């Protein structure tokens, strides 16, 4: 078990406090609302809060086991996300073996590369080698119907669910001068900011939301929620700079970038869901939908955060 530094303890304490306060608010709202539609919203809110407890406990355990725990947790997250993505993507009989490679060879290999800190191969395995392998394996079966479309969809799923997500635990492989052994704290900082941004955008949208940003894509996203949520999450990012290698201003800037990326992720995934005619990617997380619905912002935020830290804060 990893040495628990004070910053990590503070962050965990903060998360616990937020969860306790939300649970109390949820319970109070539950006993005060009257109308049926409000009851439905509050029931969903409480389901979300319960799921947050579970997710926070799982994530905490993973972080406490050090690098390997986080890698395994994100590996499984990728697996479940890819499963939801491929389930909703029309593929054909000829893709069966290709998809088997995706789940049981390429995905574990990507996380293995994170575990052994082989940065060079980690960056190109999926964009180069898997990119060339996937169409070849499908072509061997001789099924050419919608070939390019099928290949594009499989590669896209692999990029989003595996490649992008794997950049979050990849933070563990960075050597940041003056920040030795605290990479788990940085990973927690990233996930916390991105997820808080989602929650705050949702909350601001529910309380103040009027003008919709993209009504055809995601009816729940409003300008009020967007501005309010991202401003608050950026402020929290600045306040949490003590736990990072960043100064307060740098921390605010980085938080702003990953919040905007997270928003882009949510919007893009919504567009896919609308196109496929579904509301959620799955039913695995009560109140939230599928795993993919919960991590859409991480998918887009993780690679950018990883590269900012790697470029500016490592030698």
């Amino acid at each position, binding site marked *: 078990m990893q040495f628990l530094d004070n910053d990590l303890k503070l962050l965990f304490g903060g998360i616990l406090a937020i969860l306790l306060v939300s649970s109390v608010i949820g319970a109070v709202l539950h006993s005060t609302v009257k109308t049926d539609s409000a009851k439905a919203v509050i029931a969903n809110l409480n389901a979300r809060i319960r799921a947050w407890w579970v997710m926070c406990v799982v994530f905490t355990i993973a972080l406490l086991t050090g690098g390997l725990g986080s890698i395994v947790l994100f590996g499984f997250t990728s697996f479940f996300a890819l499963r939801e993505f491929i*389930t909703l993507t029309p593929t054909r009989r000829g893709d069966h073996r290709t*998809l088997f490679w995706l789940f049981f060879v390429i995905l574990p290999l990507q996380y293995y590369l994170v575990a052994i800190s082989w940065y060079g191969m980690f960056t190109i395995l999926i964009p180069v080698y898997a990119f060339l392998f996937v169409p070849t394996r499908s072509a061997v079966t001789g099924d050419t119907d919608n070939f390019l479309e099928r290949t594009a969809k499989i590669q896209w799923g692999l990029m989003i669910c595996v490649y992008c997500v794997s950049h979050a635990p990849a933070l563990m492989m960075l050597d940041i001068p003056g920040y030795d052994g605290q990479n788990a704290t940085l990973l927690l900082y990233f996930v916390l900011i991105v997820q808080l941004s989602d929650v705050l955008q949702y909350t601001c949208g529910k309380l103040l939301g009027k003008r919709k940003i993209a009504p055809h894509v995601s009816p729940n996203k409003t300008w009020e929620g967007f501005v309010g949520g991202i401003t608050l999450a950026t402020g929290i990012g600045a306040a949490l700079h003590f736990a990072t290698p960043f100064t307060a201003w740098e921390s605010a800037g980085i938080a702003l970038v990953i919040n905007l990326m997270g928003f882009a992720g949510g919007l893009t995934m919504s567009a896919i869901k609308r196109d496929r005619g579904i509301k959620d990617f*799955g039913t695995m997380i009560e109140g939230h939908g599928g795993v993919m619905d919960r991590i859409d912002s991480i998918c887009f935020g993780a690679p950018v955060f990883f590269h900012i830290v790697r470029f500016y804060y490592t030698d």
Partner: protein
Amino acid sequence: MTMSGRAAAVVISSLCRIVSGARAQWIGCRPLTAQRIYYANHSSHLDFILLWSALPQEIRCVTRPVAARDYWEATAWRRRLAVNVFNAVLIDRKFVRTTSVGSNRRKGIMKSIDDMGDAMADSHSLILFPEGTRGDGSRIGSFKGGLYELARRRGDVDLIPVFLENLNRILPKGEFLLLPLICSVNFGTPIRLQNGEKKAAFLERARKAIVVMGAN
């Protein structure tokens, strides 16, 4: 059913639900322990075990899958599973499969229908796949006459169309590697044989009841 068989049934069905992420969606009817005949599209070896797993336990206990004797009696293991765990109704396919249209074939088919009727008695439900064999998943094949004969004999029982979604992608015909995709088991609106309804018309109506669920 024996105690160990019952325990094995709980373990196997839970495992199936976890691994496949199978979701039971009761769209056209509610889960009831009343006698029913569940009939479904057939495209994978996993079909019957997943449909069976998707049923709530109290319904699963009184529901018997109809399966091919030649397959399930081929080894002692399969036989034990079929009899003790699934409580399957084993049917001889050899009469149905022969190409000759002799009186033997007719007799064999009627014997199978009688067996299914006897297996239901007054408390059991059945699971059957009226296509008779697995399709490639792209379309639902025409139904064999057994469903009609059964509906004629048991006019007092609801027939529940069940659409199995994505199973042919998890384990298609001729494949042995499983993909970890999510499947769903959709229960549709019950049908019964109507007064004076002809065999072909009934079978087509029963087939359409599954097809429409797949179209949505």
